[in-house]
C-alpha cells in the first residue's frame, strides 16, 4: 500500500516541478514559431546592439574610457546604461577606469524612445 502512494507522490511532486520547464517551452515556441516576444525586450536588445556599433565607430581602439555615474537610483534608464557601458567598452577591448582624470574619453548614452545615442567626450 505504501509503495503505490510513494510512487504517486513522486509523480505529483515531479509534475509540480515541471511548471517552469513547461513555461520556458511555451516562451521558446512563441519566440521561434510565432515570431512573438515582448516588444520592449526586443527594443532593448536593439538599443544594446546599436550602442555596441557606436562604440566600435566612435571610440578608437585601446582607448581608456570613463562612465560617469548618477547617484539617482530612481533614474533606471541612466542606471542601466551606467552598467551596460562598462560591459560594452570592456567587451570591445577598452580599459574602463574609475578615475576620470585617467580617461581619454567619457561615455554616456542618451536614450530617446526605441533608440539610443552614444555621446563621446574627448578629455585629453
Amino acid at each position, binding site marked *: 500500500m*505504501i509503495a503505490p*502512494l510513494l510512487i504517486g507522490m513522486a509523480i505529483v511532486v515531479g509534475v*509540480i516541478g515541471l511548471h517552469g520547464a513547461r513555461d520556458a517551452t511555451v516562451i521558446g515556441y512563441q519566440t521561434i514559431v510565432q515570431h512573438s516576444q515582448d516588444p520592449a525586450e526586443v527594443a532593448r536588445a536593439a538599443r*544594446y546592439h546599436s550602442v555596441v556599433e557606436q562604440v566600435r565607430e566612435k571610440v578608437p581602439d585601446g582607448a581608456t574610457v570613463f562612465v560617469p555615474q548618477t547617484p539617482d537610483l530612481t533614474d533606471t534608464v541612466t542606471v542601466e546604461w*551606467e552598467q551596460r557601458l562598462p560591459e560594452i567598452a570592456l567587451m570591445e577591448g577598452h580599459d574602463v577606469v574609475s578615475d576620470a582624470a585617467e580617461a581619454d574619453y567619457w561615455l554616456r548614452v542618451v536614450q530617446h524612445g526605441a533608440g539610443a545615442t552614444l555621446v563621446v567626450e574627448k578629455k585629453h
Partner: protein
Amino acid sequence: MGPLLGAALASVVIVAAGLPAGYLVARRLPLALLFAPLATALAATVAVILMITCGGPFVGWLLAVLVAQYGLVFLLLRHRPRAPLPHAGWVDCLCYAVPLVPPFTALRLAPTQWDAHSIWWTHAAYFTSSGAIARAQLGNPWMYFSHTDYPPLLSAAVAVAWRVSGPNFWTAQAASAVVTFAGIALLAYAVRTVTAIGPPVLSRLAGVLVALSAWGFAVVAPAGGLADPLWASTFVAGCVMLLVGPTPGGLTLPLLLLTVSALTKNEGFIAVAELAVLTTLRDRRDLHRAWRLWLPVAAGFLWSRLARHYGATSDLVAGGHFAEFLHGDPAVWHRLRPIGDSMATLLGLITGLSAVSAALGTAFLRRQRAALGLGADLWLWLAYGLFFVTLTITYLTSPNDIAWHLATSADRVTVPLTLLVVASSAIWGVTAYAACVGTDGAGGGTTPAEVIMPAASLKLTTAAAAPMKFAPGGKP
C-alpha cells in the same frame, strides 16, 4: 560572421575543447559529450585564475591550460585504464538530454537579462583581455554593481566563446546556455545513477523529472545567461551522488560537478562547503574518502581569496548587516516575515508534499532502502535545511530593500531547494517501486526482481554461491 552563426560556432568549440577531458572522466563518448562543456568551463576558469595571478593575455593562458590538459588526458588514458561510467550509453544520454531541448528553446529570446549583462557578461568582458585589466576591474570601486567577487566559471566560458567568434550578446547567451545545459543533463545522470535499483525506464524518468525542475520559477534563467541553474544543478547532482549513492564510478565526477558549483557563484561555494561538512560527518569513519570532499571547497576558497586580494567585493559583503543580525536588531529581524512569505510561496507546496513522501518512506521503507544500497534520505534534507537557513540569513542581513531583493532573486536562488525536494521524492518513488516489485517477486513468483534489484540480488547471489559457509553449524 552573423550573430547566430557565431553563437553556433562558439557552442561547437566549447563542446569540442572539453571532449578529451570529458572522455577521460566518462570513458564513453555520449556522456563525454554531455560533460565536455563543463570541462571547457573549468579549463577556462583555471586560465582566468592564472591570468589574474601572473598577468598576460587570456588567450595565451587558455591555450597553455588546454595543451596541458590534453597532455594529462593522454597520459591518464594510457596509464590509468578503467571501466566506463555506468549508464553512459547513447540511449541513456539521449534520455538525459532530449527532454531538456524544448525548454532551452527560450534561448531565442533577446539577450537582455539584467544580471546576465551586469554580472556574468561584464566579467567575461574583462576576462577576455589581460591580467592587468582584469585585476584593475576586480578592484574598480565603480564596478561595485557587478559583484566582482563572484566566481568566474560561467564568465570564463563566455570569454572563450567571445575569443572564438567575436564579442556578441547572442554568443554570450548561447555559451552560457550550453554550459548550463551540461550541468542540468548531468543532474539527470546523477539521479539515474543512484536510482539504478529500479527499472531503466523508471530510473531515467526520475532523472528527467528532477532535471526539468531546474527551471523552477526562474523560467528564463537557464537559457538567459544566469548562473543559478548551473550551480544549483551541479550542486544537487553532487549531493545525490555523495549523500545517496552508491557512486560506482568513484568520486571523480561528483567532485568535478561540485567544483563547477563552487566556482560558479558565491551561494554555490557556501552550499558546497555545507555539503562537505555533511559528507565528512557521514563518512567520519572513512577519512580517506572524506578529505577529498573538501577539494571543491578549496577551489572556491582559492577564488574567494584571490578576488578579495585584488579588492573585489559585492553589496552583501561590503554592506551586509551581519553584526545587527547577531545582536538581534529588530530592523533586521523585521525582514523575516516577508522572507517567510516568499519562501512559502515558492517552496511551500512542493516541499510539503516531498516531506510527507520522505516521512512515509522513512517510516515504512527505511530498511528496504538500506538493503538496496542507498543512503538515508535525511542527509538530503539536512543539505536542504542548511541552505535554507543560509538563504534566510542572507536576506536578513542584506543591505537592500527586502521587497526589492526578494522580487529580483528569490525565484532563482531557491532552485537548489526545489531540486533537492524533487530528488528526494523521485528517489523514494523508485525505491518504493523496487521494494514493491521485489516483495511481489518473492511472494508471487514474478520474475522482474533480479532485473530491477541488481544490488540486492548481487548480495543474495554472493551468499547463495557459498551456502556451506552460511549453513547453521558451519561447513558440514
